[in-house]
């Protein structure tokens, strides 16, 4: 099995899509000559040319809207928005147009487009480059939201997203780009839109996505040494939620901790908590626990950035809390 990085996995996925379908093109700020802000698209310009690896001006609303129009015109655009923070400049196009056109046209107009954007903290990029606003998009009917956490998902989710007839937003956590993992061949049952149990366990369900999956797995590993069986569920698809997989795990372990790098208030973790309370309350043996970011813009200094965001120790403490362990 080959080992490749998360960054390379996305690049290969884009390369494959560009080779497979002439309708596919990549567009965004610095995707071409610069090679991508996070070097994801490095080398693609040379292979595919400026028409299909298209640098744009710093006009997020303009080129995101142009991507939507191109999708309506029969193309299959992949639009890279450098970070989720910048995507707020294009929120109008994504929420008011991409997400609504099918519905407000009575089913006539589809927008088959993929938006890729980096999110998350950990690189000391401070309060305008570090946020996790996945739930802003996951809130909106009409779009689908993916968060690949593994090299395998980085490599294979994109094809499912491009094949999808509706807009798909893919979040790439900035701390994942350098991760190197084994890349297995594409499984026949691969489905980007389902949650996956990354580690089975009987005592508590631990839900995470994107950059926080690895913290969750690390917490589970440490607790395994103490005889605690943590079932780690990788959410993967933030909209639509794979409630079936989530509920089954929670009903089995009867305890749940949710890790989410978004601010706690109104987070995806809040939505999951509400769903467990609505549908699984009588199956639960302990209160639902959330591990989220503190209610503060992400600060620059490393120690404050770490204190603001979910860390392994905090996840372990939350699990111990729902297990009633006080050691």
């Amino acid at each position, binding site marked *: 099995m080959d080992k490749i990085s998360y960054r390379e996995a996305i690049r290969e996925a884009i390369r494959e899509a560009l080779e497979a379908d002439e309708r596919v*093109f990549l567009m965004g700020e610095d995707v071409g000559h610069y090679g991508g802000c996070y070097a994801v698209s490095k080398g693609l310009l040379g292979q595919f040319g400026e*028409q299909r690896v298209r640098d*744009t*001006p710093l*006009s997020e*609303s*303009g*080129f*995101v*809207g*142009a*991507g*939507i*129009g*191109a*999708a*309506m*015109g*029969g*193309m299959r*655009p992949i639009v890279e928005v450098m970070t989720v923070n910048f995507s707020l400049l294009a929120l*109008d*196009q994504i929420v*008011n*147009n991409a997400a609504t*056109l*099918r*519905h*407000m*046209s*009575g*089913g*006539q*107009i*589809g927008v088959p487009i993929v938006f890729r954007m980096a999110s998350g903290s950990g690189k000391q990029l401070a309060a305008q480059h570090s946020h996790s606003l996945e739930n802003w998009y996951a809130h909106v*009917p*009409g779009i*689908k939201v993916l968060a690949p956490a593994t090299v395998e998902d980085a490599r294979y989710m994109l094809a499912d997203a491009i094949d*999808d*007839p*509706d807009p798909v937003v893919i979040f790439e956590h900035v701390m994942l780009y350098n991760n190197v993992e084994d890349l297995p061949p594409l499984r026949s049952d691969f489905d980007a839109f389902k949650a996956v149990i990354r580690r089975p366990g009987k005592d508590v369900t631990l839900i995470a996505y994107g950059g926080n999956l690895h913290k969750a797995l690390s917490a589970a590993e440490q607790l395994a040494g103490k005889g605690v069986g943590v079932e780690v569920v990788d959410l993967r698809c933030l909209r*639509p939620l794979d409630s079936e997989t989530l509920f089954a795990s929670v009903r089995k372990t009867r305890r749940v901790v949710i890790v989410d790098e978004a601010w706690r208030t109104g987070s995806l973790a809040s939505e999951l908590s509400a769903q467990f309370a609505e549908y699984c309350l009588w199956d639960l043996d302990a209160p639902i626990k959330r591990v989220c970011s503190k209610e503060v813009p992400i600060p620059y200094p490393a120690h404050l950035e770490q204190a603001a965001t979910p860390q392994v120790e905090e996840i372990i403490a939350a699990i111990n809390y729902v297990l009633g362990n006080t050691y």
Partner: protein
Amino acid sequence: MKIHLSKADLHQRLRSMLRIRRFEERCAELYTQEKIRGFLHLYIGEEAIAVGVIEVLTEDDAIFATYREHGHALARGLDIRAVMAEMYGKQSGSSLGRGGSMHIFDRSKRFYGGNAIVAGALPMAVGMALADQLQGRNRVTSCFFGEGAVAEGEFHESMNLAVLWELPVLFVCENNGYAMGTSLDRSESEMSVATKAASYGMASRSVDGMNVIEVEAAAGEMCQAIRQGQGPQLLECQTYRLRGHSMFDTQLYRSQEEVQQWLDKGPIVLFRAWLQQSGYITDDELAQIEREIEEELQQAVEFAEQAPFERIEDLCHHVYAAELR
């Protein structure tokens, strides 16, 4: 450029404008009867623009319009019954009734809305033209917007992208002088939209939007230039909204005298008088056109009245291509 129109052509332009005018007047009545709800923005006074521009488009060309788009939909040849049923929110409407007055769509006519975020359609029109360019199709994407849109960043981003990538877009600014109640001179440092477009290197010009022939001639030249690969063009049409912004507008921002002056300069008044004085149309012919429009409208209203509403059970349809569990 001179354009040569036969008597039949001239009658057709008048009929097309009158048809929009009468449709809008009927909508206003139906609104007061509470048959139509929500926001209703009437195109009364601006008919010459949609009629003049859409006349020069082919069926392969695309149209993006605003929330004041009934006229464009009718000029494009959408089924008048489906457009009226859409006003009623009925299933037989052009968007199943889900869009209403502001969101008329018909993909088969390449009519892409009905877009109610000011300037929101400009980037999409740029993208549609990009798709045509990438797929080697010689088509024009037309994009209508009001002068209020030029204050939005998306206008400027779209001007830049269209020129930068040499895209086949005909931008049509319907400059009616007021963004809701804010006049252009109270919101813009440079009041000429054509000048703004020119600053991006775009071919642009300003015409009398009350003169259907002048609009058609200019749009025809610009479309020809686009089809010949000369890149995007912007046509600014000076016009006036003879009714309020929407049905809620009390029009505190302009005087009755001003409105009256423009009523005398309306596109239909002027064109009809010219046709009559020139002997291109008789009173009988005019009366017959009005009768035929009235009959068609009556049928459209009856169709809308009798059309069914969608079932509530189907509420969550058309959010995704395949319904989710």
